[in-house]
């Protein structure tokens, strides 16, 4: 009798265990041969780990063309997340986001999206030649963060661009802010467009009722999930979910354009085990996380000056919902930029947070955290206030800088360009990105006009110690711009 798969199974895990029992003599890659050929590596990572760092073989299936255990693992993942199909992704959520864009759009086709997207979205447009239509996200002036897209703004973008092929939604943003994804999905479908969701920060939405609506439930056609964030799998492992509106075979072809043919079983088995854990225990896991974060928020808000925000931001539109597992903390009332608090926490208190921008820090809390770690964070924030508080003058108020798109990212990226000292680039069209990392949201993308306002922001962020990335010049003293005709 054939075994009926259930969420208690972990097909890749079981196959790897079976393979270990067979004690195969490996005359295939990887060349470390279960670690024996590289004792220092084995000593550091552990024999158990190296013994399953293996290549695809009959009993382990093949990610490029899954027919057995990987296929089963993908089916189980699809069921657990309520999707028609799930793809195990081993190139990070970046690869899942790129696959969504490359699947939905061809050269010259339009994608409606908010400007505060991850760089991977625009990178994908460089690859396929699609053109962005930006919906200005609302800005919270005080907190200095971009919010979600208003439904009315999306409607307007659809009316102005009825030929657009897809709409892209962050569900949620890095800071935990959600748009009305259900209504946006409905609008997209009404106009024959696809709805693509970046759920890099939303894996947990699928497993708890107190959290915002998950994209697939809201009717998205595709969603990219960072299982390695709230899902607990290894770094670089992700899931791509698709609805029955999308051809599974075509998506697989797109994935195989850029994906390695030596997919890591460490990453895949981590997805398999994490999916099982979420499916069986997701509710209690996120109950615990919500409890920890709510406690931390209360304690941090009681310190004074700090503002750890949550559902009170919800306005039913630009902030349609808020992910209460996110611990985003506004620091500017202390006279300190988020990045300064981020640096102090690491250098003086041995606490590494996810990121600091110019007005906020984000502490990433997960099931791996213990109450005493939360106490350390709260105590350190209280000490930073006692020891480092400054007056607030000379703090730049973050403002949404409306991008002026002169041409598509692909055209700009591949155009003839020249490198100029950054201060001489105002009025020119950038052919490369500038962004703070994390969060990795572009300040400037290829094809956009450089303005004095943008340069002022870049200088300020550099001065405060933000890690700036993107340009060919690692020090961001020069910038590549399109040659003028």
């Amino acid at each position, binding site marked *: 009798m054939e075994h009926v798969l259930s969420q208690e199974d972990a097909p890749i895990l079981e196959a790897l265990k079976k393979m270990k029992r067979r004690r195969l003599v490996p005359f295939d890659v990887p060349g470390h041969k279960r670690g024996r050929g590289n004792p220092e590596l084995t000593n550091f990572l552990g024999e158990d780990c190296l013994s399953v760092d293996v290549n695809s073989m009959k009993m382990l299936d093949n990610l490029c063309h899954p027919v057995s255990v990987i296929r089963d693992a993908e089916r189980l993942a699809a069921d657990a997340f309520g999707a028609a199909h799930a793809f195990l992704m081993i190139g990070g959520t970046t690869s899942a986001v790129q696959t969504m864009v490359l699947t939905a759009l061809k050269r010259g086709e339009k994608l409606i999206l908010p400007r505060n997207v991850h760089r991977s979205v625009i990178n994908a447009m460089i690859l396929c030649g699609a053109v962005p239509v930006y919906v200005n996200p609302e800005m919270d002036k005080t907190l200095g963060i971009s919010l979600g897209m208003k439904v009315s703004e999306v409607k307007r973008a659809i009316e102005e661009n009825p030929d657009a092929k897809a709409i892209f939604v962050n569900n949620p943003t890095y800071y935990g802010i959600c748009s009305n994804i259900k209504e946006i999905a409905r609008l997209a479908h009404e106009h024959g467009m696809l709805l693509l969701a970046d759920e890099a920060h939303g894996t947990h939405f699928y497993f708890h009722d107190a959290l915002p609506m998950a994209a697939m439930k809201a009717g998205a056609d595709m969603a990219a999930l960072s299982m390695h964030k709230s899902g607990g799998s290894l770094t670089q492992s992700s899931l791509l979910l698709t609805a029955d509106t999308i051809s599974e075979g075509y998506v697989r072809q797109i994935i195989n354009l850029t994906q390695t043919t030596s997919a890591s079983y460490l990453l895949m088995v981590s997805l398999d085990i994490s999916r099982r854990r979420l499916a069986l225990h997701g509710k209690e896991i996120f109950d615990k996380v919500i409890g920890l974060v709510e406690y931390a928020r209360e*304690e941090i808000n009681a310190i004074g000056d700090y503002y750890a925000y949550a559902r009170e931001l919800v306005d039913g539109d630009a902030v349609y919902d808020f992910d209460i597992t996110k611990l985003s903390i506004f620091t500017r009332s202390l006279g300190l930029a988020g990045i300064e608090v981020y640096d102090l926490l690491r250098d*003086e*208190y*041995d606490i590494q947070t996810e990121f600091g921008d110019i007005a906020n820090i984000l502490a990433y809390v997960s099931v791996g955290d213990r*109450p*005493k770690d939360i*106490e*350390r964070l*709260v*105590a*350190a924030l*209280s*000490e930073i206030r*006692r*020891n480092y508080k400054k007056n607030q003058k000379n703090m730049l108020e973050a403002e949404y800088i409306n991008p002026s798109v002169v041409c598509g990212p692909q055209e700009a990226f591949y155009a003839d360009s020249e490198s100029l000292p950054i201060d001489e680039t105002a009025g020119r069209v950038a052919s490369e990105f500038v962004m703070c990392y994390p969060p990795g949201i572009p300040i400037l993308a290829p094809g956009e006009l450089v303005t004095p306002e943008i340069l002022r922001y870049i200088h300020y962020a550099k001065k405060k110690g933000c890690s700036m990335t993107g340009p060919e010049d690692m020090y961001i003293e020069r910038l590549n711009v399109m040659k003028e005709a």
Partner: protein
Amino acid sequence: MDLWFTENHTKNARFSMKVDNVLFTKQSEFQRIDIFDTPEFGRVLTLDGYTMLTEKDEFMYHEMIVHVPMSVHPNAKNVLVIGGGDGGTVRELTRFKCVEHIDLVEIDEDVVLSCQKYLPQTASKLDDPRVDKHYEDGLKFIRHHEDEYDVIIVDSTDPFGPGEGLFTREFYGNCYRALKADGIMVNQHESPFYTDTAYAMQRAHERIVQSFPIAKVYEVHIPTYPSGHWLFGFASKKYHPYKNVDFTRWESQGFKMKYYNPRLHVASFALPTYVEDMLKEVEKRDEAK
């Protein structure tokens, strides 16, 4: 019957005591608690397999962690003990008439309950009317107190396990804030001898130097702790730990001691050269900042 308790002092060095019988074993919410009788050291308390105290040598630890700051401070009325669920530190504190109130903050109630039952030698004064017991995280407790205590004694476990938050800069900073303008903090400072504890010792000293104007280290012999050579940190806002200390007040109380005396008090701040060098190294690092 040849039953032995063994503690790994490092990966490559062990310490063993013969065990007569085991009295108590429990996995609490925070750690594994064991109490057993030994022919050599009397009754022993271990947490997660690490020796916390033995009846035979606990006086060395508890006399030195309490009487040093209590001799220096001219009139300590309000004292905070963080950790110390075995009660030894509280026992010594209750000998002082000037002490009006003691807050004991121990994260693990099971440690207090089991010591009250099996270790009356240390736990006997935990029910003294001056003592308020709080079962919570020390870091959390102290955050809510400002300018309140004359003396804070950090009687913690090791910098791994439940006590790890007590070896951090945020904790020492919060202690500074919770002390009055002439307050003193003493903490368990690990050993300079083995590499791992030496690193913890340096780290703790660095964190204290960053928070307090006066930060000195003194030593004590504790035969059942790794290497037997142990350090305590003395951190203070105002009083130097041995210059100009007037011992007449302490002497007038006529305590009968087994380890502590004023001559040893002063002498215990004289440290081996290699320890002085380790401390200077982190002090210099702090000055360079």
